[in-house]
């Protein structure tokens, strides 16, 4: 498994774990009435810090386990995999943004707008990672 494939597994795991927890927490909070802005802001800062920590620690561990394969530049196959997955993720992001903004207009408030856009972005990123991992496993033929 190449360094970049491992990197995608880390990113996907972090997305599912951290952002999954965030959106479940948000939905629970909505059940109890819309949370106030300081609450939302605090939660977001916590999630962003957790994501940074997971990425830094995860990539450091992977690099230390096999230093010879740790690198940042992509080769031609990895670029092709990334380009193909990004194109599909962009479609999902565009569609998700339209839905999110439509929902925000229907029931306009900052909370729905921020979280709708955020969800579309995280969903698109997660789909990109899944497609990349699938291409790494099954090939690009």
């Amino acid at each position: 498994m190449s360094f970049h494939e491992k990197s995608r597994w880390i990113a996907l795991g972090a997305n599912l774990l951290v952002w999954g927890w965030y959106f479940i927490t948000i939905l629970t909070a909505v059940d109890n009435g819309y949370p106030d802005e300081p609450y939302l802001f605090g939660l977001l800062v916590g999630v962003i810090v957790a994501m940074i920590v997971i990425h830094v620690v995860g990539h450091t561990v992977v690099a230390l386990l096999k230093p010879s394969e740790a690198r940042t530049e992509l080769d031609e196959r990895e670029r092709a995999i990334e380009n193909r997955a990004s194109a599909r993720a962009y479609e999902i992001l565009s569609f998700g943004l339209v839905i999110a903004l439509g929902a925000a207009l229907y029931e306009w408030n900052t909370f729905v707008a921020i979280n709708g856009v955020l969800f579309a972005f995280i969903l698109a990123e997660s789909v990109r990672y899944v497609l990349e991992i699938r291409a790494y496993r099954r090939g690009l033929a």
Partner: protein
Amino acid sequence: MARLPFTNDIRTLRFLAGEMTQAELGEKIGVTRQTIAAIEQGKYSPTLEAAFRIARVFGKPLDEVFRWEG
């Protein structure tokens, strides 16, 4: 996943070239060991540039490394 319409003899050529490893070949043409493995297994179609580089490493013309079977 559909198979590529061509095969290659990279594995044999590596063996004949002093049992060159996938990592060594990858280093010579600027790709990872995993990309060489994917090319050998027909899971990735290399760019024309990479194909020429591989052929050049073994001192063979392109059609002695890659064969069209579509």
